[in-house]
């Protein structure tokens, strides 16, 4: 057994009573992580699964964290988990789960059908394009930050962002359930 792993266990055991600062920092990131995981996932359940996998991985890998920018490190781990998951799913496609999203809580007063349309359109994006879009638009990362997190050139970030936006616009145009809305 490598030395580091042993040391980790002991440390965790010792610090159990007082709040572990690392764990507290991860805990503080959970709301943002939950939002990011849901913005990537197909459903609320998938989003929570992704969140749990991410927290688990962050805690097991905590020895690998270099001590700077925990948030970016954790978001990178989630991004990679998501991309791997999508790849796995592509190999073993499941039956599409229809959630009748129109009936979900109307917590933000958005038109439920509009949201359904948006979520369906998001499903058409590739994993990479979707992750870039969400990191920029929802999580507010700069293009260079995204490039660093995903270890790609900033030009690739831009082309993915561009593709995501155009595909989304296209998909929203195709999927025009709302065409029958009253013109008032």
């Amino acid at each position, binding site marked *: 057994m490598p030395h580091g792993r042993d040391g980790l266990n002991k440390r*965790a055991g010792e610090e159990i009573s007082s709040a572990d600062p690392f*764990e507290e920092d*991860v805990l503080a990131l959970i709301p943002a992580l*939950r939002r990011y995981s849901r913005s990537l996932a197909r459903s609320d359940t998938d989003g929570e699964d992704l969140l749990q996998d991410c*927290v688990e991985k962050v805690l097991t890998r905590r020895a690998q964290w270099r001590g700077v920018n925990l948030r970016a490190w954790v978001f990178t781990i989630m991004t990679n988990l998501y991309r791997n998951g999508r790849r796995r799913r592509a190999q073993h496609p499941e039956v599409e789960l229809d959630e009748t999203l129109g009936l*979900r809580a109307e917590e933000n007063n958005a038109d439920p059908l509009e949201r359904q349309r948006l979520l369906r359109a998001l499903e058409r994006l590739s994993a990479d394009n979707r992750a870039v879009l969400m990191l920029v638009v929802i999580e507010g990362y700069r293009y260079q930050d995204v490039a660093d997190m995903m270890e790609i050139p900033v030009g690739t970030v831009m082309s993915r*962002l561009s593709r995501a936006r155009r595909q989304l616009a296209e998909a929203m145009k195709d999927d025009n359930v709302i065409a*029958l809305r*009253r013109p008032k």
Partner: protein
Amino acid sequence: MSADFETVSDDDLHAYVDGHLAQPERERIESWLEKQPAKAEEVRQWQAQATALKQHFASYARSGEEDRSLISARRKSRSTGWASAVPTLRRLAAGLLIFAAGALAGAYGPDLVAPPPESADASEALPRQAQSAFLIYASEVRHPVEVGASEREHLATWLGKRLDYGLKIPDLSSLGFSLVGGRLVPVNDTAGAMLMYEDVTGERLTVLLGRNPENRETSFRISSRGEVETFYWIDGEIGYAVTGEVPRALLQKVADECYRQFEASESS
């Protein structure tokens, strides 16, 4: 504007949409967009997307009762046996902490992943009632309706009177569905109307109309129960629900057609 102002790249447009630019740069792009209607439209779409995405996912950024246990569960599995080694008091304290976190989360927001609470909201009751009516009556072979299509005029007058609404029975023949007839059904505890249609293969659809006590408007919504799907909407005093076990695209066309015809009869 001089010619060198004319160079705005796609990257600039993204940076503009994402709010990464300082004021002079924004102004340069805005004046460029004024002369580029196609690009301006695209930028407008991107901005609308960003707003919709932020609005939709914002509500997920909150803590849940289970957050702390996500971490402590992991810790337990990592260092097996710690629980027995740690004094009982400490474990109690940890438990209290989890409880406190839960109480806090409970105070600041309902559990995110739990399904929305059952509400007595009439707009949610409508699709359920429509699905029940469909399941009960569409499978009826001999008496699916009280008044058949041969008495179309009478059916409209009768149901319209009970509903206190100028009911015009939609004609769905353009979509391959002809009227079977209709019946009086309870909807939201008062008299409602159910119309039934079928195509040449005998595939049936129902259109349910009920009084809506809240008198408000919604856009189209969809609800499923097993294979049965319902498109429904509320327009002022009347709620409408189109239900069937047909492909969603077809059901949507039917809902569209019904909406169009009801709207036309209302304004006439």
